[in-house]
């Protein structure tokens, strides 16, 4: 065991335990989603190579503790049979987390899992000056806590009233938290300067009297470790996926270009300047 390359092991998600020669194997999970096939194999590996338990991490990952160093290749092969791959730790893009989103949850404005998969394909494991986290939440209930992440994506709805389907029940105005909807003489009037596109008017409408389309709020520089800071929204509402990925590309590239080793995105932003990042992001936003 003298030649163990801990850096390589760590990159592959093998977390050194306090117990000598034991590793907690972190698996790659995207958007908190595993198939039953994945789970069966994980259970089998935990029984055969671990001590029969797994740990669910704070960021929707799975770790199998008490994996012995000498079994690492065998464990990797076994997991691969069940469609599982080791995850990552260290200075790179981490697990992309997501809530269930619009495909499952009635409150969801965006297909979070689809966005998480695309972010994962684009960035997962990318080497950077420090760890970098993405999180995708479907709506402003924010179950996934978007602002905890270096880049957080939050689902919104761009919407427009359809007079022909409206029964003038007044529910949209009632549920609006920002008092952005006024109803006069049967006409629903949205003050788009007040609106934050949360989608509650659309979701509550009992007659589907709204045209709506998924949109995204993106926050930057969130971190919830030794230092705590909430990510900030630095660009206007994003209204399509291509625009979204232009902006996330710009954010990660800004971090790659400007960060010092071991420095989180928030620290880079404070050191290099919020205005500089804003400029880069807004150029990407405009396309």
């Amino acid at each position, binding site marked *: 065991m003298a030649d163990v390359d801990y850096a390589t092991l760590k990159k592959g998600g093998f977390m050194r335990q306090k117990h000598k020669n034991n590793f907690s194997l972190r698996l790659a999970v995207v958007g908190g989603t595993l198939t039953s096939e994945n789970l069966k194999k994980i259970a089998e590996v935990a029984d055969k190579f671990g001590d029969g338990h797994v740990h669910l991490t704070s960021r929707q990952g799975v770790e199998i503790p008490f994996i012995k160093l000498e079994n690492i290749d065998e464990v990797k092969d076994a997991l691969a049979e069940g469609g599982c791959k080791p995850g990552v730790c260290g200075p790179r893009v981490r697990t992309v987390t997501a809530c269930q989103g619009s495909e499952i949850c009635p409150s969801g404005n965006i297909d979070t899992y689809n966005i998480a998969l695309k972010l994962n394909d684009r960035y997962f494991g990318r080497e950077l000056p420090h760890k970098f986290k993405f999180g995708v939440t479907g709506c402003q209930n924010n179950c996934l806590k978007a602002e905890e992440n270096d880049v957080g994506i939050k689902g919104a709805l761009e919407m427009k009233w359809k007079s022909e389907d409206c*029964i003038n029940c007044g529910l949209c105005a009632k*549920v609006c938290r920002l008092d952005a909807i006024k109803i006069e003489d049967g006409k629903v009037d949205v003050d788009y300067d007040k609106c934050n596109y949360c989608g509650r008017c659309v979701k509550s409408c*009992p007659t589907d009297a709204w045209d709506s389309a998924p949109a995204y709020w993106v926050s930057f520089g969130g971190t919830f470790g030794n230092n705590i800071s909430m990510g900030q929204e630095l660009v206007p509402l994003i209204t399509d996926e291509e625009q979204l990925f232009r902006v996330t590309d710009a954010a990660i590239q800004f971090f790659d270009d400007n960060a010092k080793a071991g420095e989180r995105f928030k620290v880079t932003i404070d050191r290099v300047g919020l205005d500089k990042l804003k400029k880069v992001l807004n150029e990407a936003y405009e396309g």
Partner: protein
Amino acid sequence: MADFEITDRVDITDVVCPVTFVKAKVALEELDDGDILEVRLNDGEPLQNVPRSIKEEGHKILKLNDNEDGTYTLIVKKVEED
């Protein structure tokens, strides 16, 4: 509310989510196609979710009235599934 011939009434102001919706749903199941149910519900969470959930079950929401006492009255037409 004279516009509608009410078949039955249900008050869901005495229960909380998710029973609010369940109580309304059970009341609707008792009815025939085209019957009209009047649902009394509380402001807040039930107002945000119950009308929409009933609509998603395939029924038709005809009207919502503010009773101005913290409760609302929802008028629903039962639509039988094909």
